[in-house]
């Protein structure tokens, strides 16, 4: 043994040193002015942009769902904290979550209690906000199957729960939806929806409305047959399930289905736009945001990427992946569909947030849905019909040359189409998108969106892959890299009416946290290297920052405490796809690790370590 050790010690050390790749050159991406399109010129004089009262009722100071309101504004009407005094913000209390994995959830505040769900093993904590230090009222450990950790594509995250009608409702990694009594923490019902042996996990935050719980699956990298499901809020009983690929009967496409674009009209397109049987393992998960529209009584359900990533194995439009359905919340029946990325070649899931606003367009007020897609475009969609009113790039784009507003389809740039056995370089945006799941906010005061996003590109080579149930179904070798300029993240304030950015803050790392904006005109967000920041909503000027124990990828909130004061809360705990190099057992020496993300994040271990802590801040009072 000693001899062996000596021999091995004499072997040379690794010749390879990890470096962050050079940024993609500026001239590799298209200019916003050249590829952004709209059906009509801006008409700001036609009215004020805001969410309707039905979707964004008067703020009661609580924060009962991750999106704040059905409109998904993440706007807090509280204004005790201002650009002038935010520099005095201090931590009020913190609480260890006991789990050092990526913490993506929004803390929920209802009845003077704060509810937090952790990454796997999905422990729920209830903290009593009426007492000093917010002591624990109860905790609930759902004990999800440990094996589910092995089929979660991008860290074992959970994006939060919701409080409604005396229940806290959340999902577990192993595919359960659970409702617990908000006063006792005792489970009222738990419904097993996903099957880990088919690659199904659940990481999304349920949407609760009209006595129904709307949930969807994760597993777009595992060859799942993606779905959205509605449960009875009182019993957990399954009300309906709509698949995102397959025959119309499974997708819940019937007589009510009236898609705007010709390419989405026809029988069983969820079968015929795939090679034989490929739809059965074609992904189309629903792991992001499901948005209930109280005004139009609709449910908007974003659909994830098609599988496998190797597009050469699935010629066709691969419906209904990488798009959005409007569904009847009572029956699940589809009303319209729009496909952001037909035959997606770059993992551009369509699951990012939908923000429901009344907005002036073409000289009149229109009911729109704003969706900021992974494919790099910010879409303004008329939400009665699913008509795209405008689509503009907000990040680096070269996979397409704009969206054709007659057909609704991206104008494909053939140079960035992926190939079998051949690496295509400098594809923008990267697989995780110009922006991933982490939600934007909207202020009716500034009429701006606050978009936390990425500035990253990638090299991609397809490889043949076989489907083996319960294992990844990907078939691509990806290496990510910084976008033009080298800053991997950006916070952009965007004017949806004028279709342009108003200001932007560059960040070294991709921004993987959500944003919250307040009536005090302050925007809060966190960075992956562990700074929780406040910027001026009108200028982007940095007003305050606080170093937390680990990188921030959670969703900050603003609420009124029992004492009447304004509080800001956020989880720290780096991880997720972009942070797996810190939170997971992932090696920075392998650029292809974590689906190619490590190539562009290998320096993160120098800046932060894994953690999991709730922080609550307020002004001295």
């Amino acid at each position, binding site marked *: 043994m000693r001899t062996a050790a000596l*021999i*091995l*010690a004499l072997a040379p050390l690794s010749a390879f*040193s990890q470096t962050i790749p050079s940024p993609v050159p500026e001239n590799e991406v298209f200019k916003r002015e050249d590829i952004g399109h709209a059906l009509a010129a801006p008409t700001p004089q036609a009215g004020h942009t805001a969410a309707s009262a039905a979707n964004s009722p008067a703020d009661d100071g609580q924060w009962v769902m991750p999106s704040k309101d059905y409109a998904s504004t993440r706007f807090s009407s509280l204004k005790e904290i201002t650009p002038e005094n935010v520099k005095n913000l201090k931590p009020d209390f913190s609480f260890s979550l006991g789990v050092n994995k990526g913490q993506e959830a929004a803390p929920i505040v209802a009845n003077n209690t704060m509810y937090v769900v952790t990454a796997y093993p999905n422990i729920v904590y209830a903290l009593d906000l009426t007492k000093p230090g917010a002591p624990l009222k109860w905790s609930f450990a759902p004990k999800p199957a440990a094996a589910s950790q*092995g089929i979660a594509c991008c860290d074992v995250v959970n994006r939060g729960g919701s409080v409604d009608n005396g229940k806290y409702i959340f999902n577990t990694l192993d595919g359960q939806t659970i409702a617990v009594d908000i006063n006792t923490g005792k489970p009222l019902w738990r419904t097993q929806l996903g099957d880990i042996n088919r690659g199904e996990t659940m990481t999304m935050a349920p949407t609760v409305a009209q006595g129904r719980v709307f949930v969807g699956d994760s597993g777009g990298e595992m060859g799942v047959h993606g779905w959205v499901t509605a449960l009875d809020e009182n019993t957990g009983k399954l009300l309906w399930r709509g698949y995102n690929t397959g025959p119309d009967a499974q997708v819940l496409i019937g007589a009510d289905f009236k898609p705007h674009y010709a390419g989405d009209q026809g029988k069983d397109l969820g079968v015929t736009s795939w090679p034989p049987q490929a739809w059965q393992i074609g992904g189309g998960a629903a792991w992001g945001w499901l948005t209930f529209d109280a005004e139009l009584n609709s449910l908007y359900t974003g659909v994830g990427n098609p599988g496998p990533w190797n597009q050469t194995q699935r010629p066709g439009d691969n419906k209904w992946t990488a798009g959005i359905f409007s569904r009847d919340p009572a029956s699940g029946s589809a009303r319209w569909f729009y496909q952001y990325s037909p035959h997606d070649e770059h993992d551009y899931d369509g699951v990012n947030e939908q923000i429901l606003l009344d907005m002036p367009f073409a000289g009149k007020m229109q009911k729109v849905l704003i969706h900021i897609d992974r494919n790099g475009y910010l879409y303004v969609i008329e939400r009665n019909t699913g008509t795209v009113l405008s689509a503009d790039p907000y990040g680096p784009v070269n996979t397409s040359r704009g969206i054709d507003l007659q057909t609704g389809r991206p104008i494909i740039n053939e140079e960035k189409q992926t190939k079998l056995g051949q690496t295509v370089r400098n594809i923008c945006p990267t697989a995780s998108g110009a922006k991933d799941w982490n939600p934007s906010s909207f202020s009716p005061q500034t009429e701006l969106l606050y978009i936390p996003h990425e500035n990253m590109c990638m090299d991609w080579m397809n490889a043949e892959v076989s489907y083996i149930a319960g294992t990844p179904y990907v078939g691509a070798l990806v290496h990510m890299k910084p976008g033009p300029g080298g800053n991997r993240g950006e916070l952009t304030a965007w004017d949806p009416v004028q279709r342009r950015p108003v200001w932007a803050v560059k960040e070294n790392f991709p921004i993987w946290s959500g944003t919250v904006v307040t009536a005090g005109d302050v925007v809060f967000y966190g960075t992956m290297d562990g700074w929780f920041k406040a910027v001026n909503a009108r200028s982007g000027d940095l007003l305050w920052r606080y170093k937390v124990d680990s990188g921030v990828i959670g969703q900050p909130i603003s609420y009124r405490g029992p004492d009447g004061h304004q509080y800001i809360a956020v989880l720290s705990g780096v991880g997720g796809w972009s942070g797996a190099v810190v939170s997971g057992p992932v*090696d920075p020496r392998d650029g292809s690790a974590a689906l190619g993300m490590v190539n562009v994040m290998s*320096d993160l271990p120098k800046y932060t370590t894994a953690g999991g802590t709730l922080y609550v801040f307020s002004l001295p009072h």
Partner: protein
Amino acid sequence: MSSRYLTKFAACSALLLLGGCNRNPQSAAPPTEQGDVHGVIDSALDPGVDHSLVTSDPRVAAYLNNADAVNTGKRLFGQYNCSGCHSNGGGGMGPDLMDDVWTYGGRLEQIHQTLVQGRPNGMPSWGGKVPDEQLWQLSAYVRSMSLPQTLAAQTDNTPSQSPAPVPPEVEQDAGWSPLPATTNDYTSTIKGVD
């Protein structure tokens, strides 16, 4: 039966009198058979002996010093979607395999056992689903990923592309020690920051 087994057997028999050693009393085999069990040791804790027990599966020898084994293992690693979770050794959905940590042991027979049985935190079980010969070849490739020679052969950001054959020396270890010149100090390899 080697003297090591005899040591183990004697210690175990003593412990059995106190109700120890036998992990599953309900399906207990007669104590006298304990010493003959050529099970793969999954833990660095080995009560009753002053050093960790090293067993030796006779099937291992064929995969040592065997370049074909690691190269075939590399191909199978892609074909069976191992790379979907473990990438090219750096991990992702599954753990890093090119570092110096062996949770379930780094001897070939221990790796093989992990592939056959699966592991509770998300490693599927492949026994009976993949030919055993291929599981051994995969084991050899996985063991090769953290060999200093394989690490040294890395020329770009995709490691484990030139896997070195597994030397017999590594099998003299009980499976828990990091090899010299393997490292967990990833950050030391990162350049171009700040």
